[in-house]
């Protein structure tokens, strides 16, 4: 008898919850929100950054490379109409790339760590710089 009562009350609770859920769903579905209570949020698209008109890639030397020669080859690619400035601690030069934008030069470096800074400057003044650290050492370890 007791079990029957328990099962019946459980089923009744379930039915009650179901009925309340259906009633709440219909209430929400038929609810009308006044236009004055609504707000339109618009997201402004970010201003696109103009793509730089100049690019520069350095094939040689590799960053943090350790070399055993004081003569270093620097080569890379940039815009064909750019001026390429190559600077080390004790050397600087300005070179013109070939028609396809390739450039190559040799520079002398000092003992120890050297920063090789290559800057490509476009005719409109825009520029880009690549820095590489090259170490001259003949130490064995």
């Amino acid at each position, binding site marked *: 008898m007791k079990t029957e009562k328990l099962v019946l009350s459980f089923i009744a609770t379930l039915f009650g919850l179901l009925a309340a859920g259906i009633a709440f769903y219909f209430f929400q579905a038929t609810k009308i929100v006044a236009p004055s209570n609504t707000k339109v949020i618009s997201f402004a698209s970010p201003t696109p950054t103009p793509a730089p008109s100049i690019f520069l890639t350095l094939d040689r030397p590799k960053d*943090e*490379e*350790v070399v055993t020669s004081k003569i270093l080859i620097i080569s890379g690619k940039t815009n064909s109409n750019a*001026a390429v*400035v190559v*600077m080390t*601690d004790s050397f*600087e*030069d*300005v*070179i*013109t790339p070939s028609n396809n934008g390739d450039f190559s030069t040799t520079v002398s470096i000092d003992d*120890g*760590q050297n*920063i090789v*800074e290559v*800057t490509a*400057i*476009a*005719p*409109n*003044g*825009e*520029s880009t*710089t690549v*820095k590489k*650290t*090259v*170490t001259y*050492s003949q*130490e064995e*370890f």
Partner: protein
Amino acid sequence: MMRKILSLLLIVNCSLLIVAPLAHAATPTPDDKIQELRNQLITNIASRVAQLKLVEKRGMIGKVTNVTNIQITVVDTLGNTRFIDVDELTKFSSPNAKGTYGISDIAKDATVGVLGLYNKESRRILARFVNVITIPFIIHGGVAKIDDENFSISVTTIGGKQMTVDVENLTRTYSYTQSAGYIRSGFSKIQENYNIIVKGTLSTNDKNKMTATRIIIFPEIPASPKVNSMLDKVNKSSQ
């Protein structure tokens, strides 16, 4: 009696089964020895190759942010934080050092050149040589103002900084044009709004002042569009 004999036979068989392979293993033939040697050699070569590929010589430059007895933390030229391990084989030096120089002498904010073994897995350098160095200071921008009396120029950099550049007797000025190429020039040839690159040393007292060792001007190339807008502001404020 029969059961005892059967048990004995079983024990003998079992012991034979166990002892036979052991006896075989205990007396290796010359072929086995060669095979074992070969395997050991292959293992050694493989581990050495792995070690060689994992570790390579590298040299880098960084600004010291922290120093302990076993490690130096630096910020490299690309702005990355790097960890340098030091041990009893690491040698330290500084051009200004009088006498012995060690890790405890390395000050925060010093610029150091590190040469050592870079571990690709841990991304750390085991330093063999740590030297305190001075690196040249290079700026690129447009000429904002020329002071003929004091032989100095004001340069607006691409980053928007205003730098006063002192031109001295030792300063060499060069010019680059498409027609003439890279040629020797002089202070008198520098004009306002020129695209300019200056290499030199930063003043110890004033971070906005430097002494030039090399100046390269580009008379045919205007200053960068970014710099141009800032140059206009500078010119308007000075008028």
